[in-house]
């Protein structure tokens, strides 16, 4: 049953081949037996999931079922879930039971999807390997000595290991696409403003965007149909007509103009990744896609600019974690300053503290212009680069990551080398564009991701292009040994 995609499970539910309760119980059993090896879930919500599954089955019996009614899924533990701990992978929120649902969570509830649990993640979504979680690292199901990527590493691992048919993730600098690539699944970061940020714990507000993670582009489209939509509680949510992201999946890609960004194909990309990309490009050529090289002259500055903008915003966003109204509070504070510094010093992990300090510095008097303002200007240059490229081409294609999954502990001592694992994904967030990663092959037995980048609001085109690839290839069906 867990071999089925979301689309197939939805069909099976509709055909009454299986009930939501049976399906949910099946996944809960898999989680129980297999997740110890992965640590993909922080909290498993078996009871609530089964209750929701029963409600979904009732709804179906009464003819009130929607497209995904009864399909279980998982939420990254950054989305607030009413009555369920929402930890954000941090000791700071280990005791935080959210008093409300995130907008995205509400939408999945309304769609009738039982929630299996909350997935592990880098602390406050700051990390590219899932090693910064207070709940311990997540392991890559393809090789449990390796990282699954981050920060949505838990969601990626449980989808790859078939411990959930699909999951939500968030992407601030690559946090959906990079783990999707390293675990061999499909993930999409929508255009900034597509998906409500209400109730999604903020890391860097102008970059954060929730999105779907599943095994196929079609599944991502189905999940995005649920997730995307206007939310008046989020000032950055965009009011747009409802869109059906599955509608264009079958559109042929013949004649599509696809750009290959020069800086994405230079040195730094591992040979195994380069070979997989070449094969993928050949496959698309066979489908009639026209390729041309495009330049993104400022792409090389994306990572440095990002590591100013994101920490600056996070230093302010994380100021509310002060031990006063919720969350971790240190023992016996001797005065107010002690309450603040120890609650925050003990509640946050090392990487979060590093970024808060970098951001605090970048915004402080005397350094604001040289760091924060400079980064915002580079951000404009990068967005302008993309705008120029999209005058010539419809989609950009490149690698998602420079290499396959690295070993746990390999990069923890060198923050900068860790940051560079997002070198191909970060520019997309700075510009606010949609991007996705889909599995395109293996290198030394580990999954390699291909990244597609679209113009604003062009998710349907990206999903269609990915779907056309998956119609003719088998990479998205690969399952890691031991989790088949």
């Amino acid at each position, binding site marked *: 049953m867990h071999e089925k995609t979301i689309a197939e499970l939805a069909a099976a539910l509709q055909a009454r081949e299986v009930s939501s309760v049976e399906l949910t119980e099946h996944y809960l059993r898999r989680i129980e037996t297999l997740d110890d090896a992965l640590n993909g879930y922080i909290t498993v919500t078996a009871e609530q999931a089964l209750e929701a599954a029963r409600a979904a089955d009732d709804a179906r019996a009464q003819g009130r079922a929607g497209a995904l009614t009864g399909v279980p899924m998982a939420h990254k533990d950054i989305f607030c879930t009413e009555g369920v701990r929402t930890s954000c992978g941090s000791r700071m929120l280990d005791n935080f039971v959210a008093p409300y649902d995130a907008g995205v969570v509400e939408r999945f509830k309304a769609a009738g999807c039982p929630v299996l649990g909350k997935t592990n993640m880098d602390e406050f979504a700051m990390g590219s390997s899932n090693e910064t979680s207070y709940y311990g690292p997540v392991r890559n199901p393809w090789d449990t000595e390796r990282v699954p990527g981050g920060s949505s590493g838990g969601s990626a691992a449980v989808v790859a290991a078939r411990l959930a048919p699909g999951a939500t993730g968030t992407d601030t600098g690559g946090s959906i696409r990079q783990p999707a690539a390293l675990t061999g699944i499909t993930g999409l970061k929508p255009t900034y403003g597509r998906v409500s940020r209400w109730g999604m714990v903020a890391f860097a507000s102008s970059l954060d965007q929730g999105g779907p993670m599943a095994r196929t582009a079609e599944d991502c489209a189905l999940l995005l149909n649920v997730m995307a939509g206007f939310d008046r509680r989020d000032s950055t949510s965009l009011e747009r007509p409802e869109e059906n992201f599955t509608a264009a999946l079958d559109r042929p890609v013949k004649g599509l103009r696809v750009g290959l960004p020069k800086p994405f194909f230079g040195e730094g990309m591992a040979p195994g990744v380069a070979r997989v990309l070449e094969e993928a490009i050949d496959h698309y050529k066979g489908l009639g896609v026209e390729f041309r090289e495009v330049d993104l002259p400022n792409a090389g500055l994306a990572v440095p600019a990002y590591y100013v903008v994101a920490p600056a915003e996070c230093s302010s966003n994380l100021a509310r974690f002060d031990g006063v109204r919720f969350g971790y509070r240190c023992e016996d504070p001797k005065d107010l300053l002690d309450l603040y510094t120890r609650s925050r010093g003990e509640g946050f992990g090392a990487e979060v*503290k590093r970024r808060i300090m970098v951001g605090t510095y970048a915004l402080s008097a005397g350094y604001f212009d040289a760091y924060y303002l400079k980064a915002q200007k580079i951000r404009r240059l990068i967005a302008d680069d993309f705008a120029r490229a999209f005058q010539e081409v419809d989609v950009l294609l490149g690698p998602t990551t420079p290499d396959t999954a690295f070993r746990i502990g390999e990069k923890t001592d060198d923050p900068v080398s860790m940051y560079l694992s997002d070198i191909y994904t970060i520019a997309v967030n700075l510009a606010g564009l949609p991007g996705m990663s889909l599995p395109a092959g293996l290198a030394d037995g580990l999954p390699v991701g291909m990244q597609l980048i679209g113009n604003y609001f062009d998710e349907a085109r990206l999903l269609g292009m990915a779907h056309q690839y998956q119609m003719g290839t088998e990479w998205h069906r690969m399952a890691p040994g031991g989790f088949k």
Partner: protein
Amino acid sequence: MSLSRDEVEKIAHLARLAVRPEDLEGYARELSGILAFVEQMDAADTEGVTPMAHPVEASQRLRPDEPNEPDRRDRFQAIAPAVEAGLYLVPRVIE
């Protein structure tokens, strides 16, 4: 930009983060490394470029002036570390 221990201490204080004295050196090294990395930005000519604070070119939406939030104090204070008489408690504040 290379940060000294003193500067790290100052930043940590501004960010209200307790840092053990023995960790200052490590932070100074790591933060200096990150700053050196981000200073690659200096290579770009940004003369006359308008800073981009936001990826979307849109205007702030306005909400009608209508109170619509119920009192949920009990629910919110159930997750608070210290409350009394409906107030959040903190160590004494001196003005």
